[in-house]
């Protein structure tokens, strides 16, 4: 029986639409700042000088406003403010600068930068994007009680997005599982060495297709063997362990059997590493994010669930997940 989940005491995080509205207003202001710069720089011959000067202007605007009033004009207009974590004061000039530098740089990179800005705001449980992470700040409704402590962040995350509870425990969230995957090779020296060797092989004078096909096949075999054995033996990969997650098989009441673990590893390997399987990986991501069970295609193949380690208390489960989200684990 999994431990009962108790709702944390925490305040609201801003609506995602409101965040985007504030950003749209600030974009208009940035556009207005660009006009005079067009006149004083030779945009045709020196486009990057123009962009750099615009970046400086945007950073100056945002730094000055956030450090003195706690918000940009866009945020003021929609009733939001920027607050530093663990403090009741306004953001310091240094924090405001860090925030502004990241936001402005992303604003000036069409498509990729805008995608990161919007995705960060929409996907993060606390609506904290890259700029907030760089400056250790958070955007909250104007009347939120301060301070917001680091240790309370899991509560805010659960308030914004209530956890999904399964018969076998709290379901692992997409962002936590994705970050666990980034740490898949911790303490797995053989796979690390294999990655290095394969990447040296890309420089060999063979056709690119040959290197890709052979290299991917070699990697798939090694990865599937490693993943199968680890998950069947301990119910977790190194990334799962860091995130406080386990791969649970309800049929066995613990780690999946070797056969099911193999099926799971094979489907994940084909999805993640073959290029053509990336569509499957996208479907898996959608399933983890949107379904009540949070089970990906490889979970369905293996008859498994990825849930919080039932040996941990609910608070430790939450803190582990948040540490992973904040990049504070390895």
């Amino acid at each position, binding site marked *: 029986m999994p431990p009962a989940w108790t709702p944390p005491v925490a305040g609201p995080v801003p609506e995602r639409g409101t965040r985007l509205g504030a950003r749209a207003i600030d974009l208009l202001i940035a556009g207005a700042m660009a006009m005079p710069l067009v006149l004083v720089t030779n945009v045709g011959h020196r486009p990057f*000088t123009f962009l750099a000067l615009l970046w400086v202007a945007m950073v100056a605007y945002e730094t000055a406003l956030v450090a003195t009033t706690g918000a940009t004009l866009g945020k003021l207009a929609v009733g939001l403010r920027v607050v530093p974590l663990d403090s009741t004061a306004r953001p310091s000039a240094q924090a405001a600068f860090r925030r502004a530098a990241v936001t402005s740089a992303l604003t000036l990179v069409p498509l990729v930068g805008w995608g990161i800005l919007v995705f960060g705001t929409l996907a993060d449980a606390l609506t904290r994007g890259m700029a907030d992470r760089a400056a250790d700040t958070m955007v909250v409704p104007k009347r939120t009680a301060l301070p917001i402590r680091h240790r309370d962040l899991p509560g805010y995350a659960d308030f914004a997005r209530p956890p999904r509870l399964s018969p076998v425990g709290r379901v692992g969230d997409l962002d936590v599982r994705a970050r666990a995957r*980034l740490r898949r090779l911790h303490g797995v020296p053989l796979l690390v060495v294999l990655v290095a060797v394969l*990447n040296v*092989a890309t420089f*060999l004078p063979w056709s690119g297709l040959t290197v890709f096909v052979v290299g*991917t096949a070699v990697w798939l075999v090694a990865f599937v063997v490693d993943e199968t054995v680890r998950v069947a033996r301990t119910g977790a990969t190194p990334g799962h362990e860091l995130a406080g997650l386990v791969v649970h098989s309800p049929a066995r009441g613990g780690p999946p059997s070797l056969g099911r673990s193999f099926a799971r590893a094979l489907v994940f390997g084909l999805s993640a590493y073959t290029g053509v399987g990336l569509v499957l990986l996208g479907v898996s991501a959608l399933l983890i994010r949107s379904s009540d069970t949070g089970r990906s295609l490889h979970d369905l193949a293996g008859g498994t669930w990825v849930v919080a380690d039932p040996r941990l208390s609910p608070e430790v489960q939450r803190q582990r997940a948040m540490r992973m989200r904040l990049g504070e684990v390895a």
Partner: protein
Amino acid sequence: MALPFRDNLEPRRVPWVTFALIVVNCVVFLLLQPSAFQTAPDDGEGPLDRAEYERVVDAETFVMRWALVPCEIRTGTPVADAPEGCDEAPTRHLPERKSVYLALLSSMFLHGSIDHLAGNLFFLWVFGRNVEDRLGPLVHLAIYLLGGLAASLTSVFTDLHSAVPHLGASGAIAATMGAYLLCYPRARILTQVALPIQFVYLPAAVVLVLYFVTQFFIGSDSNVAWEAHAGGMVAGFLLAIPALRLPWVRRLARPDSDFAATAPTSF
């Protein structure tokens, strides 16, 4: 191929020298280098008009004046003065005056394109912050400049007769990477690897040794001065050995807990 994105160590101090080097490189490229480095002159089918032609001349003359030319270092004489044993210069737009040895320094702050600049400064950002955090700002600056110098000299010695100009901060940044390898071999670097395509944290030692080894596979027909990268990296590594023994640098060491790869027992 492996492209590093970030490491898992948050610097404990503001890396002022890293910031300053980034700013200086940007200012030089954006404000001091001729505009042709930002937008290539229209090289359509017809001949260039006078204004565009002058932009080309301006850029070529600028490069030959401030970039490192190996045979100039060997002879101590500018290519414009036709020193003995030099290959033919790649352009006939040569500067009237040139301080040959100053180019060892000035070439470190020049870049051929916005991609070149962005790539180099991204590497400097990823590795420079924590090298500075560990060694201190002045020692980091010294390693950057001396390592860059060693990288330039490596380029010179691998082709003593070449009149092709060399420019870019990559040799100096490779020195910073060499120092990082010595300081933080156990750090973890979020890396995009090419085969299999994935983002994954890898030990810094693996990422940096991989970078070093793959330099020797870069073809000589590419525009990459891989010798400078390798030479700079070795120089940075060797310079960091005595630097780490300096009394004030020893006091900047991080606690072992910063490198823990497992979650603490409490959380």
